[in-house]
């Protein structure tokens, strides 16, 4: 919460300073901010709704059941897909990863889960392609997905 408060306070302060220095520019900045926010808002709302739905249908317990019980290539693939399609905030994801580890999941799968979770965003893909074009968004996600396997392999070797 404190982070949010400081972000809002800092933003307001900067606007006050900006307003003192140049009134017209500050009004322009605010107008631009408002316009671009309202422009992207519909996409945001859709993505947030999908996050809510996905997070309900694929609950942390289910993720645990899938990644914890399966091993081998199929387990890894499944883990990477779950990591890619879900969007879980860090304060839930890391404790979840820890509990999966305690339940006997391999370091490799945990690394794969954490890495795809953070780098690959299927749910936010519409938003990303709205800004950068479909091709750029697709390429970034595919490369991040592939790289996650490399990260997982190395971490499996390094972490004992």
């Amino acid at each position: 919460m404190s982070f949010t408060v400081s972000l809002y306070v800092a933003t307001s302060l900067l606007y006050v300073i900006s307003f003192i220095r140049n009134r017209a520019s500050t009004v322009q900045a605010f107008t631009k901010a408002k316009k671009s926010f309202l422009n992207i808002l519909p996409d945001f709302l859709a993505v947030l709704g999908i996050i809510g739905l996905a997070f309900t249908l694929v609950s942390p317990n289910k993720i645990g059941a899938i990644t914890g019980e399966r091993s081998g290539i199929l387990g890894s693939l499944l883990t990477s897909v779950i990591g890619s399609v879900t969007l879980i905030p860090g304060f839930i994801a890391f404790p979840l990863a820890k509990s999966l580890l305690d339940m006997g999941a391999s370091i490799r799968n945990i690394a794969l889960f954490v890495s795809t979770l953070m780098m690959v965003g299927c749910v936010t893909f519409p938003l990303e392609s709205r800004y950068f074009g479909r091709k750029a968004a697709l390429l970034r996600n595919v490369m991040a997905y592939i790289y996650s396997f490399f990260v997982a392999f190395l971490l499996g070797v390094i972490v004992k």
Partner: protein
Amino acid sequence: MKRYAPSLCIAASIAFLYFIRPELGRQAALKSASAMIEMLRVVPPVFLLLGLFDVWVPRQTIIRLMGERSGALGTILSITLGAAAAGPLYAAFPVAAAMAKKGAKFANIAVFLGAWSTLKIPMFLFETSSLGAVFAVSRWLINVPGIIVIGYLLEKFLGPEDKTRIYSYEGEHLNQA
């Protein structure tokens, strides 16, 4: 109004879910609401700051720091900015687009997105306490070259027309699709 159609469809799906499985529907509605609050905590100030950035920061400055000829400095700066951030990856998209508009090199924008997605320091601290320092530090270090490589490969794979689309980003373009 037409652009709100997807959101309305999803709202309708949640309502439908509520009718067939009330408990799941209720959860989905609650979780969407909390995702929305999460978004409102970060995204409006980000846009407000981008407005100031757009008005006050000269294009020349960004070109010098992160443009085509910025070299290693631009890459290091992109990583630092991304790693210092907090908040979900979707908040990084408009920031990256604003940097592109000011003349940042595409590879640097991709590196910034990569750093934001996976090198964030607040996340790193959380990861260390949950999964241990060896895990978190190794993953962080392995990711640094990774996001640089991904950034430069992206730059290479994308044709001039793809980049023009990104570089010409303005709020107005979002209305067309």
